[in-house]
């Protein structure tokens, strides 16, 4: 290989005196060689970047099954999904009415309670317990915790307030608490992380 490259270079130098082919051939070789090495370098660097992305074992924890039979109306539990807290709350009729009474124009991230729950399960509000501002766990799911001004959740870190449909109402958070994919496998169990095709 090396001798071949050298012999190709030989005539290029002598032919390069004029404006003829030699110079262009040399340019072609240079661009070709650098481009080839460049593509090789990018390919070689790729693993250094992709190793940072979530690994297979992290992705494998993508669904969690939770028994919700013991959750009384007006209370909720904290489950764990993909290493993040999930709030599962059984809304009271009063809380549902409060959420429905809010006009969408008042909301920063307009969504109705219907859009945030599954059909026929309007009382089950299932959201990530991760504040959409900077990722703290809001208060309000546990017994006796501060639920904030709007009766939903209150984030102690930077003061975001969520209502009974876990929609952002006040404070720095830009979005409503995220509703993950989930499905009811039985009337009293939910599978979080799965859209469910039943």
């Amino acid at each position: 290989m090396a001798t071949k490259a050298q012999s190709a270079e030989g005539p290029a130098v002598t032919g390069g005196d004029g404006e003829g082919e030699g110079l262009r051939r040399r340019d072609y070789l240079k661009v070709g060689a650098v481009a080839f090495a460049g593509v090789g370098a990018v390919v070689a660097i790729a693993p250094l970047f992709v190793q940072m992305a979530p690994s297979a074992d992290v992705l494998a924890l993508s669904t969690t099954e939770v028994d919700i039979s013991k959750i009384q109306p007006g209370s909720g539990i904290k489950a764990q999904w993909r290493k993040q807290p999930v709030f599962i709350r059984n809304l009271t009729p009063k809380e549902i009415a409060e959420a429905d009474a809010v006009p969408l124009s008042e909301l920063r991230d307009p969504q109705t309670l219907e859009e945030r729950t599954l059909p026929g399960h309007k009382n089950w509000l299932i959201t990530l317990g991760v504040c959409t501002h900077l990722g703290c766990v809001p208060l309000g799911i546990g017994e006796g915790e501060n639920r904030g001004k709007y009766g939903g959740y209150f984030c102690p870190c930077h003061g975001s307030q969520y209502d009974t449909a876990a929609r952002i109402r006040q404070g720095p958070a830009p979005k409503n608490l995220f509703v993950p994919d989930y499905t009811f496998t039985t009337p009293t169990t939910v599978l979080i992380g799965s859209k469910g095709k039943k």
Partner: protein
Amino acid sequence: MSFSWAKPYEPKHPVMRWLDERLPLPRVIYGAIGGGYPVPRNLNYWWNFGVLAGIFLTIQILTGIVLAMHYTASTDGAFNSVNQLIMRDVNAGWLLRYAHMNGASFFFLVVYIHIFRGLYYGSYKAPRELVWMLGLVIYLLMMATAFMGYVLPWGQMSYWGAQVITNFFSAIPVIGEPLRIWVLGGYAPDEAALTRFFSLHYLLPFIIAAVVILHIWALHIPGSGNPTGVDVKDERDTLPFHPYYTAKDGWFAAAFLLFYVIVTYFLPNYLGSPDNYTPANPLATPAEIVPEWYLLPFYAILRSFTADFILPAKLWGVLAMFSSILLLFFLPWIDKSPVRSGTYRPLFKRFFWLLVIDVLVLGWVGGSPVKPLTVAVGQIAAAYYFLHFLVILPLVSRFETPLPLPMSITESVLHGSEAEVAPAPKTQRRAKSATAAAE
């Protein structure tokens, strides 16, 4: 490097001569921090903090290398390896850990004094713009290193600090959330995040050391500044770094390190948060998340955006926080006044001290819980911070009449500060000082 009268290196011992001819390392050191580097003779104690910063970087690297020998970077083992193994079982582990922990705080304290010295004496002005900018790069690297180091013990504050700070990325439109997940290697801080933070926390100090070398290299081209801001004119204005400034830096370092050692021995946890002695719990956020004291002013700026205005409040907060540092890179061109030293700038001096108070207020707000009063004070203080750099400084540098500058460093030293600011006796001198002021 800088002045024609700088003494060249003359190896005395044959071994050194042999080495110098083959690898002139002793020559480089002699020219950088030895007798071969002429320094203005009038430096005050504010000029000691550069060397001190170097000392603290060394302390951090040494204690850090040793601590890494005992630390376990895993979510199961990290908390115990710090709080059980290092703090109780390893011989002198408690001392090394406390020295490292408080060393970070003192490193920042020293660097803050160093930065504000630069702000007061106009050290960022031509021809030292790159010295200033490299210093800011060091400061940014320090913040990244300190943040990642704070995550390593995997206590509550470690975990939630990691969560909050990596969430800054999610404020970026469109690519933000995928970027955050890529940075963390998961959906929330976990094993993958902890191990990569450990790797980078070990790497970055050496990058800092490399940038420090560039910082000093760039400084030694024009030579050190001085409290009058007047350029060095001849040999009488300077003293060799060794023995004059090595002696002064040496005694001051000893005095300052005493202060550091007292805190490390007797108040080791004063600057930290007690919440970090609770193991990380991904399901419960501590009632109040507070960063280490040295990041509080930025935290206050981040929190001072509470309502959407065209862009989401969250993005505003993150943008404002980063631009509060990034705008310092433009300072050499924002402050156009030809007079370097704040001593000769009566108006600038007042606004400088207002800025110092403003940053302290921001720090206080950053450490206080979110309440209407603290939020309001934080918003005013954050607005003033930007006002200072973007409006006040350009206006002051345009309309201020500076005081007459001394003819030379030597004259200011020999005549004292009164003669310094009084008009010089001879008309020729007055003309000269006027041109010096205009330069």
